[in-house]
C-alpha cells in the first residue's frame, strides 16, 4: 500500500507538484493521467526518492520512506523509466541482473529467473547476450520491464512504459501486460498521457493538471461523473470508445431482451461492450451467448447490443 500525503515540489519558481495526496491499495493499479508537464513523472519519482519532496510525506505499507536508506528503498521498488534507460554497456542478461546482483543473489538463481522472465515477456532467447542497441524499441521496453520485475518487488512504478512504441505494438504489449500473472499481485503506480492506455490498464485513474489532482476514481466514475469541465473535456475526444470499454454486459443486462435460450458454451457477463462487438464482427456468428450472474443466459445480436447500450447511456445522463 502506498500513501502520498500532501506532497509538493517546486523547481525554481515553477510548482511542478502541488499538494498531491492519494492512496494506492494493495494489488491495485493506479494510473497518473494528464497532459505533458503536469507533474506526473515528478510525483512518481517522489515515491522512490529519486526526487525529495519540498513538503508532505510518502508512506509505503505505513512506513515513512524518509526514514529509510534511499538505496535500500529503491532496490525494493521496481521502476520502469520513461526513457527506458538501459545500460548501453551491459548485455540484456546483465541489464536484467543489476538488482539481483545488488541483492547478492547467486548466479543460478539469477539465471533461472531471467530465463523465466524472457519467456513471459516474449523476448527471443538469443537476445540475452545482445546489447540494448541491437534490440528494437519494443524489445528494449520489455527488457526495461524485466529489469523492474526480476526481484518480484511488491511495488512497481512505471513511467510511460509503452511511450516509445507505435500504436500497433503498444496495443499488443498492453494486452500481454494485462495478462501477466506477476503483475496482478503488485501494487502499481503507472504514468501515462494516453487516455486509452489509462482506461485499458487502470483500476483507478488519477487525473492531474498543473501539478494538482483534478479527480481520482475508477474509469467508469471519470466517464460518467466528471468532476468539472477539465475532466469532461479531457475525455471528450475519445468518449464513445472509452464507454464501450468501460461498460460491461452486466451493466446493460437489464436492457437486453429477456429471451432465454438453451444451454451452450456461454461467455461471462464481465465482457465489455467493445469486446463483444469485436466478437460479433469478427466471427461468422450473428449472436453471442452470455450468461448472467443468476444462471440466466442471453443470446445477443449486434442490434440488441447497441440498443441496450444506448438505453444505458441515456439512463446515466439522466441520473
Amino acid at each position, binding site marked *: 500500500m502506498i500513501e502520498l500525503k500532501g506532497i509538493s515540489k517546486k523547481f525554481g519558481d515553477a510548482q511542478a507538484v502541488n499538494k498531491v495526496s492519494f492512496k494506492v491499495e494493495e494489488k491495485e493499479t493506479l494510473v497518473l493521467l494528464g497532459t505533458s508537464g503536469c507533474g506526473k513523472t515528478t510525483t512518481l519519482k517522489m515515491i*522512490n526518492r*529519486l526526487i525529495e519532496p519540498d513538503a508532505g510525506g510518502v508512506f509505503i505499507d505505513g512506513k515513512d520512506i524518509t526514514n529509510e536508506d534511499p*538505496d*535500500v*528503498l*529503491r*532496490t*525494493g521498488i521496481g*521502476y520502469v*523509466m520513461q*526513457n*527506458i*534507460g*538501459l*545500460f*548501453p*554497456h*551491459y*548485455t540484456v542478461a546483465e541489464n536484467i541482473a*543489476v*538488482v539481483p546482483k*545488488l541483492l547478492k543473489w547467486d548466479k543460478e538463481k539469477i539465471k533461472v529467473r531471467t530465463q523465466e522472465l524472457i519467456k513471459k515477456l516474449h523476448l527471443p532467447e538469443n537476445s540475452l547476450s545482445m*546489447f540494448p542497441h541491437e534490440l528494437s524499441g519494443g524489445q528494449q521496453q520489455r527488457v526495461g520491464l524485466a*529489469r523492474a520485475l526480476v526481484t518480484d518487488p511488491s511495488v512497481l512504478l512505471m513511467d510511460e512504459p509503452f511511450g516509445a512504441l507505435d500504436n500497433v505494438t503498444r496495443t499488443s504489449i498492453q494486452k500481454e501486460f494485462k495478462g501477466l500473472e506477476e503483475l496482478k499481485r503488485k501494487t502499481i503506480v503507472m504514468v501515462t498521457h494516453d487516455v486509452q492506455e489509462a482506461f485499458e490498464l487502470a483500476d483507478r485513474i488519477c487525473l492531474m493538471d498543473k501539478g494538482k489532482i483534478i479527480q481520482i476514481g475508477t474509469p467508469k466514475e471519470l466517464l460518467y461523473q466528471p468532476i468539472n469541465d477539465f475532466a469532461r473535456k479531457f475525455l471528450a475526444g475519445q468518449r464513445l470508445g472509452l464507454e464501450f470499454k468501460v461498460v460491461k454486459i452486466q451493466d446493460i443486462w437489464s436492457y437486453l431482451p429477456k429471451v432465454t435460450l438453451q444451454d451452450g458454451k456461454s461467455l461471462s457477463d464481465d465482457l465489455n461492450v467493445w469486446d463483444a462487438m469485436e466478437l460479433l464482427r469478427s466471427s461468422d456468428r450473428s449472436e453471442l451467448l452470455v450468461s448472467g450472474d443468476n444462471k440466466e443466459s442471453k443470446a445477443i445480436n449486434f442490434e440488441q447490443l447497441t440498443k441496450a447500450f444506448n438505453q444505458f447511456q441515456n439512463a446515466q445522463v439522466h441520473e
Partner: protein
Amino acid sequence: MNEQQQTLWQFMHEQSDKLFAQTLQHVGLTFISLLFAIAIGLPLGILIARKRKLSGTVLGIAGVLQTVPSIALLGFMIPVLGIGAKPAIVALLIYALLPIIRNTYTGIIGIDQHVKEAARAMGMSKSQILLKVELPLAMPVILAGIRTATVINVGVATLASFIAAGGLGEFIFGGISLNNTNMILAGAIPAALLAIILDALLSLVQKMNFKKLRKALYILPAVLLILGGFYVLPSAYGSTLTAGFTPEFMGRQDGDLGLKSIYGLKIHTIVISDAIMYKAAFSKELDVISGYSTDGRLKAFDLKILKDDKSIFPPYYAAPIVRNEAFKQFPKLEETLNLLAGKITDSVMTDLNYRTDYLHQTPERVAKDFLISTGLYKAPKNGHNGVVRIGSKIFGEQYILAEMYSMLIRGNTDYGVSTKTGLGGTKICFDALMNDQIDFYPEYTGTGLLVLLQPDPKIAKEMAHNKDKTYNYVSAEFEKKFKIKWLKPIGFNNSYALMMRQKQSKDLNVNTITDLKNYLDKN
C-alpha cells in the same frame, strides 16, 4: 642515400646494447609517469565531474602547467627533486595530467542522464554508479585522453636525458651536438616509432566494444606496470664519485671516450644537459662534470678545473668565420672584426660569462662595458650601406661576442647589422652560414676540426693538441671545402674541462685528471 642507410644500420647495430637500454628506459619512463598521471588525474577528473564548480580551477591549473616549456619545468624541478628519475617522472606526469583530467571529466559529464538516473532508481550506491556505470561508459573518452598523454610523454621523455634520467634523448641530443646524423636518427626513429605504435595500439583499445574493452581494462593496468617496470635507472656501476657528462661529451673522442682510453678513468657516469650540470655539481648531486673552461658558472658555483695532464682536450680557440662572398659585399668587414683579435683572454671571458650567466646582466651591456673599457667602443654610424647578418649559437658567450661584433660594425663602418642569435648547436649555425642565411659567426677551432671537418682520426690526433697547427689546418681546409675564412683568433680558449667543487678537490687532493683516476682506483 643508400650509403646513409647502410651506415645508420651499422651504427644501430654497433650501439644495439645502448639503443636497447635507452629504448627500455624511454618506454619505462613514459609508462611510469603515465601510471602516476592516471592515479592522480582520474580521481581529480571524477572529483570535478561531481563538483562542477571546481572544474574551471582544476582544468585551468593543469592547462597552465602544460604550457610551461619542458626545459624550464625540468629546471624548476632540480632544486626540489635533484636530478635523475624523480624530476623526470614528475615533469612527465605534469604534462600527462591535463588530457587525463579533462577527458575523465568530459567523459563522465557526457553520459546520458537517463542512464545515470536508471542506476540510481535501481538502488545503486554512489560508488557503485561510479564503478559500474560512469567509468565504463566514460572509458572510451578517458582512453582517448590516456592515448594523448602517452604520445605527449613519448615526446617529452626525450628531454629526460637533460637531467640524467636516460631515454632515447641521449642519442638524439648527443647526435645534434656531435653533428652525427646517424646518432640522431638512431634515437629519433625509435622514439617516433614508439609514439606511432603506442598510439595505434591505444586507438585499437579505444575502439573495442564494451565486452572486449572490459577484458582489456583488466589487462591494461598490468601492462602499464610491467612497461613502467622497464625503467631501471641508468646507474649500473657504482663508484664513490659521480660524474655528469653532456650527451655531446659522452660521444666524443676528446671527451668521455678519451677519458676512458687515455686516462683509464672509470667513474659512475650519468648523462645530463649542460644547462643543469653546473648547478647539480654545486648542490652535490654530481662530483665531476664536463664543463667549458670559460664558462661563467665556473666562477659562480666555485668550481675548479682539473688539469688535463695528458692533454686529451684539444684547444678551442674562438674566431669569427666568414663566408668569402661577404667580403665582396662588405670590404671593411675583415679589419673591423679583427679589432677584437687577441683582446679577450680566458679569465676575461670567464668573467664576462659570469656577468651574463650569474649576475644576469644583458649580453648587450656586458659587451658595451667591455668595449668601452678597452677603448674600442664608437657611437653607431648611419648603417645605410647594406646589412651584415651575424649568427650565434645558443649560449651566453656567443651572445656576448655577437653583440661586440655588432657594436664594432656599427661604430666603424656604414653597414647595418642584424643578429640571428640562438641558432641551436654547431650544425644549425654552420648550415645557416653555408646557406647564406648569415654572413659570419664565432666558431671554435676544435669544433671546426672535430665536428665540422671530421678528418681521419690520425690527422685529428696529431693536430688536436697544438693550438697553431689546428688553426692552420682548419683555415686551409675551410677555404678549400667551404669557401669560408677563419679570421684571427679572439684570444681565449674555451675547451672542454673536467671540474670539481673547489672544496672537494682540496679535500681529496685531486688537482689533475690523473689524480682523479688514482683516487677512484683506490676507493
